[in-house]
Structures are given as structure tokens and as C-alpha cells.
């Protein structure tokens, strides 16, 4: 008896799905490779014909220009490789600062939107609707102007206790100078962090086994902050401060927070906070009301319900969109160049590119940094999602 399946498989080869799939992929693959090769080839020919220098040798050349703000030692005698690093660190700095402030503000907003107080919830709503519907670039310009126009000339600085000064050149704060013995405090601090992690693990295990709770937060707080502080004073406060003082044109000494950083920080964190506020609100609302009711029925009081039932579940909803907001913030920090904050795009893809003319290498390096950053954040998100995913029966 003829096997119907077999007869069917005797169709023409170009109608065979496996064959078609492979053929299609081969064609597509060739087309892709060919296109990229053509682009690459064009670029190489163009650059060669125009005599544009290629390669990464420029990274070892002396830069010859100053940068307004640097977290590592830098002056014009350093190399272009160093300018890359300076820009990168400045980008990371504004990203971290922005993420920190946006998260706090965002959570406040999210909770405020759910407040029983009509005024507070409406104000939060108005804030969110205004800020997230106005382009960030515009907000950055706005804050920059606002910051620069309200702050006085250095000679008329706002003076706080003769140690903090605020003027159009920035916010000047005393810089800590650690003295001998401070290392002990540092070591204690880091040991305490590690210890707290272990305590938290142990406490969780114990709770799983016996149901007994352990005040991890308080213990951790005491270990991480309390102990180092006490030791710090026992050692006789081994830290002095370098106070800013007006010398010549500007304040010297201490730490300077430049106005570009202030404006960018304000704009980035206020803008992103509007989105985070919505995410937090949706997260809290997304936890089914039955959960609260069930917890109450079990006799758990309001605060523990929030802490043990609502928040952990809300976090599962909140974290994925939250990470993508963090990612957006990091990418948006590249708008820094519009007001002259020396971030990666400004310092490297801007000035360095201009001085060396090596657009291809520099743009590729800049893009790669952002790409790596976003891949890292996505990787974290996937890991987190897998960990948190509800194990459904």
C-alpha cells in the first residue's frame, strides 16, 4: 500500500519547506554579507582616496586641549586615549547620579499619584503629564538657562557657612582629605557590606525553615553606617577638609560641581522621574486587590502587608520597565553635549574627533560604549526576570 506521506514528499524540491528555508537563508546571508562588504569597501576606498588617516594610533597621541571636568587626573599633556576615559567616566557619573535621583523622585511620584489626598495625587499627575510630554533637549536648555541666570557672579556667591559656595561657575563644596587611619574605616565599611549580605542570606534561610524573622535592615544599617562612624570618631576623626576659597577669578580648592552638571542632572532626573512615577503607579496598581484582602484576612496589618505582600509583587512588574528607563537615561545623557557638559559624546565624538579627523574609529568606539552599556543592562534584566518569574503550577 502506498504511504500517503511518502508520495507527498515526492513534490518538487523547490516546494520542500526545508529546502526553501535553507535556500532563502543562503540567499539572504549572501545579500547581507555582500551589502556590508560593499559598504565597507566603499568606505575604505573613499578614505584612502582622500588620504584620511586610519587606525587607532591616535589614541596614544597628546591631546593638547583642556577638559572642564574630569574624575581622573587629566590635563592637555595627556593622550586622546585618556580623553576617551575622561568622557566615559563623566557619562557614567551623570548616568549614575541621574538614575539615583530619578528613582527616588519617581517612587515618590508614583506613590503620590495613588495618595488619598486629592491635591497631592493631582499635583503628581500634573507633574507627570507636563514633564513627560516635553522634549528632554528643551528641558535641558531650559534648566541651563535657568541655572545660569539665577546664579550670581563668583564675587557675589551665595555663601553657606563659609564652606559651601554657589555661583554661576558651580557649586563649591569642601573636599574630604583622608588622613592616616582612615583606611581602617574604609576597610570596616566594606567588610560590613559583605557581612550584611551573608546575614541577609542566613536570615532568609532561617525564616524559610522556622518562620522566625530577623531584623536584617537594622542590623545592616548598624554595621555599615554605625560601626564605621563610631570607629571614625574613636580614631579621632582622621579626615580633614579642603575648603574652597575665592582666589583671583574663581574659587579654588574643594570639589566643584559645574553648572552644566547641575542643569543636566536636574533635567535628566526630573524627566525620567515622570516615567518612573507612572511605572511605579502601574506596578502598585497591578498587584491584584485580592492580595491585600487575603493578607488582611490572614490578620496581617497594613504596613507589613505593604512590605511583605504588595511591594515584592509590585517590584516584579516595576523592574523590567524600570531598567529600560535607566537605559534611556544613560543614552539620553548624550544630550549633554548641547550644553557643554564634557561627556563621552562631547569630549570624544566632539572635540577629539575634530582634532584627529578620524570619524569612523571614534564614532564606532562611542557607539560601542553605549551598546555595551545597554547589553549589560538588558542582560541584567533578563537575569532578573528569570529569577523573579512566577513559578506557576
Amino acid at each position, binding site marked *: 500500500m502506498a504511504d500517503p506521506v511518502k508520495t507527498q514528499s515526492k513534490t518538487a524540491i523547490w516546494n520542500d519547506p526545508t529546502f526553501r528555508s535553507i535556500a*532563502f537563508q543562503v540567499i539572504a546571508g549572501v545579500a547581507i554579507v555582500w551589502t556590508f562588504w560593499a559598504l565597507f569597501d566603499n568606505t575604505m576606498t573613499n578614505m584612502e582616496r582622500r588620504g584620511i588617516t586610519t587606525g587607532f594610533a591616535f589614541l596614544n597621541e597628546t591631546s593638547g586641549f583642556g577638559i572642564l571636568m574630569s574624575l581622573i587626573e587629566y590635563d592637555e599633556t595627556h593622550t586622546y586615549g585618556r580623553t576617551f576615559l575622561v568622557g566615559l567616566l563623566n557619562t557614567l557619573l551623570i548616568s549614575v547620579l541621574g538614575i539615583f535621583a530619578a528613582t527616588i523622585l519617581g517612587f515618590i511620584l508614583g506613590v503620590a499619584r495613588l495618595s*488619598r489626598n486629592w491635591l497631592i495625587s493631582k499635583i503628581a499627575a500634573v507633574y507627570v503629564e507636563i514633564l513627560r*510630554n*516635553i*522634549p528632554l533637549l528643551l*528641558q535641558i536648555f*531650559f534648566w541651563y538657562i535657568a541655572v545660569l541666570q539665577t546664579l550670581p557672579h563668583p564675587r557675589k556667591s551665595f555663601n553657606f557657612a563659609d564652606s559651601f559656595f554657589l555661583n554661576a561657575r558651580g557649586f563649591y563644596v569642601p573636599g574630604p582629605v583622608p588622613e592616616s587611619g582612615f583606611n581602617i574605616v574604609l576597610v570596616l565599611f566594606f567588610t560590613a557590606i559583605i557581612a550584611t549580605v551573608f546575614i541577609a542570606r542566613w536570615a532568609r534561610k532561617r525564616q524559610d525553615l522556622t518562620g522566625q524573622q530577623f531584623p536584617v535592615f537594622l542590623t545592616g544599617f548598624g554595621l555599615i553606617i554605625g560601626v564605621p562612624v563610631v570607629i571614625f570618631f574613636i580614631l579621632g576623626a582622621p579626615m580633614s577638609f579642603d575648603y574652597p576659597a575665592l582666589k583671583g577669578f574663581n574659587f579654588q580648592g574643594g570639589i566643584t560641581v559645574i553648572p552644566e552638571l547641575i542643569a543636566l542632572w536636574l533635567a535628566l532626573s526630573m524627566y525620567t522621574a515622570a516615567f518612573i512615577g507612572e511605572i511605579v503607579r502601574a506596578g502598585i496598581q497591578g498587584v491584584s486587590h485580592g492580595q491585600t484582602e487575603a493578607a488582611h484576612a490572614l490578620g496581617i496589618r497594613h504596613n507589613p502587608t505593604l512590605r511583605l505582600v504588595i511591594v515584592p509583587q509590585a517590584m516584579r512588574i516595576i523592574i523590567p520597565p524600570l531598567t529600560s528607563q535607566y537605559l534611556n537615561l544613560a543614552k539620553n545623557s548624550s544630550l549633554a553635549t548641547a550644553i557643554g557638559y564634557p561627556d563621552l559624546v562631547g569630549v570624544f565624538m566632539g572635540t577629539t574627533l575634530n582634532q584627529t579627523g578620524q570619524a*569612523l574609529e571614534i564614532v564606532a568606539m562611542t557607539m560601542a560604549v553605549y551598546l555595551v552599556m545597554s547589553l549589560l543592562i538588558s542582560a541584567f534584566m533578563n537575569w532578573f526576570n528569570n529569577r523573579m518569574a512566577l513559578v506557576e503550577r
Partner: protein
Amino acid sequence: MRDFKALPDLAPPLVARGVIGWARENLFSTPLNSVMSLIVIYILYLTLVPIIDWVFVSSVFLGDDKTACEGITGACWAFIGNRLPIFAYGSYPAAEYWRLETCFVLLLFSFGPQFFEKFPYKLPLGIFSLTLFPVICYFLIAGGYFGLEHVETEKWGGLALTLMIAYVGIVAALPFGVVLALGRRSDMPVIRTFCIAFIELWRGVPLISVLFMSSVMLPLFLPDGMNFDKLLRALIGITMFQSAYMAEVIRGGLQAIPRGQYEAAKALGLSYWKSMSLIILPQALKLVIPGIVNTFIALFKDTTLVLIIGLLDILATVQAAITDPAWGAVATEGYVFAAACFWVFCFGMSRYSIKLEQKLHTGHKR
């Protein structure tokens, strides 16, 4: 037996109704709440009064130059009024404004109906607005044919340019987004890898670097002598960037279609393309319209970045105008105006997307 006649309901006690009752419930329910409300009201008083004064009371609305605004403490809206044509149309020749206006009206008539639930010929109009409309408008605005004067793209600007970039960006990104989303879910490893790489690459880098690349480096990638217009290059960059985001939105829709639909289509013997275009995509696209609107809002705001590569969108025209000594210090007015323009569009769109979401929402919401 006497008829029982209920007395009319008494009104609720005074403290539970009207403004007082409402305030009691919503503002002063607990002591803590009351304190917070009072603080907030005070802060609002401190901020809103000067703002209202600046915007409406002490401001000047009419005038042709700086003298109109001398000595006032409020906003100089006369400046905005005076520069309105430039903010709206950039340096497009004034005699040809009608061409931009025609396009705008066409847009209202073809795309506007999409916001209404029921409207005659909604579908054909929608298709028109996504296909023929951009082409017609390109010829109308650029000119050079049918006796229309040619207007170079350097002269395009202002709000018109902003709208144009956003519209083209979204319309052009749609087909690419669909293809990429399908590719990302394909069984063929080569296609899938390519699509994933493409999407993640564009989503991972800031738009400003994409714009920079397309504005100054694109010609380097192309054969010598092949060169397109700067605006077109920016549009290419924006479209690539946007299609990656669009692909992710559409993928969400594809994932939301139950397996049964795919299997049913297969069972009917439909080919891949048929089952996609007839069964899956229509459902998936409908599901993700709110998401598309949201990416559109994001794109609309992002169009401001084109000023960094020297295209004169509305923000750039405003910036140029506020540095003009002819009007003195009007920076705040300029930025507030630009912000208001963006806000109106974005807020309107976001309301629309929320409405749609509610309409399409079939899940179980508390």
C-alpha cells in the same frame, strides 16, 4: 388603608456634600493629610500666582518690536506673535506657505478621522494617509514640478519640519518594523540572528550618534558622487532607529496572538506570507496601535535632536530667534512657547493612546 408615601430623601448633611464634604473627604481626612494639604496649598499659592501674573497679567501680547515690551515684568508674547510664521514654517518662502497649509489640511482630513470611532471611509482615508499622502506632499512642498517653484530642503523648517520628520519617521518605520519583527520570530537562524542584531544595535545607541553618523558620515560609506540631501539622510537615520523600536512593539503584538491562530492558519493550508498578512498581522497590529502611538510620541520629542546636526526644526528656529538682539531677553518666552507646542501634540496623542488601550483592553481589570 392609607397609601404609604415615602418622603423625599433628605439631602446628605451639609458636611458631607458640596465643596465642604468633598474637601473633607479628599483633603482633610486625617490630621496628617490636612497638614500636607495646607502646605501644598501654600506652595501652590507661592508659585502659581507669580506664574499666572507673568503669563497673563503683566504680559504684552501685541507689538512689532522690542519697544512694545519695554518696562514690563511679565512675558513678552508679542515676540512670539511677531515670529510666529518663522516658528511655524521656518524660512520657507512666504508666498508659498499655502503649499504647507494644503498639506496640513490634507493631513487633518485623512488622518484626523482615525481618531473617531465611526467615520465614513475611515479605512481608505487611513491607507491614503500612510501611502499616497506623503508622496503628494513631498511633490507639493519640494516643488520643481507642475509649475511649482522648487524649494530646497534647507529652507524647510519650523514646526512644519518637525511634523514632517516625525510623520515620515513613523510611516517609513512601520513596514521595516513589521519585517524585522517577523524576522526576529522566524525559524530561520540566519534571518533571526540578523534581525536581532539589527534591532539591538539600533536600540542600544543614542539617537544623536545615529544622526551624527547619517548627517556627516553616510556619504563616506557610499560610492563617491552618490549623495543625498541632508534632510533625507537624517530621515534615513531616524527611520532605521525608529524601525528597531517599532519592531519590538510589533513583536509584542505578535506574541500576544494565541498559538491557536497560527495553528489554525497552518491547518487551512495558508502559506507563511498569507497566514501572516491575512490572519496574524491584522490582529497583532490592531493590538499594538497604542504602542505605536507611544513610540510616535517618543519620536516626536526626539525630532528636536535634529537641531544638533543643523536642521532648523521648531526648537532651532526658536533658539535662533531668541538670540536676535532685536527683541532683547525673550529666551524664557521662546522656550515656553516651544514647550507648549510639543506638549499639546504629545499630550493629545497620549490621551488618544490611553483611550485606545481601554477600548482594546479585554483582560480582567479590577
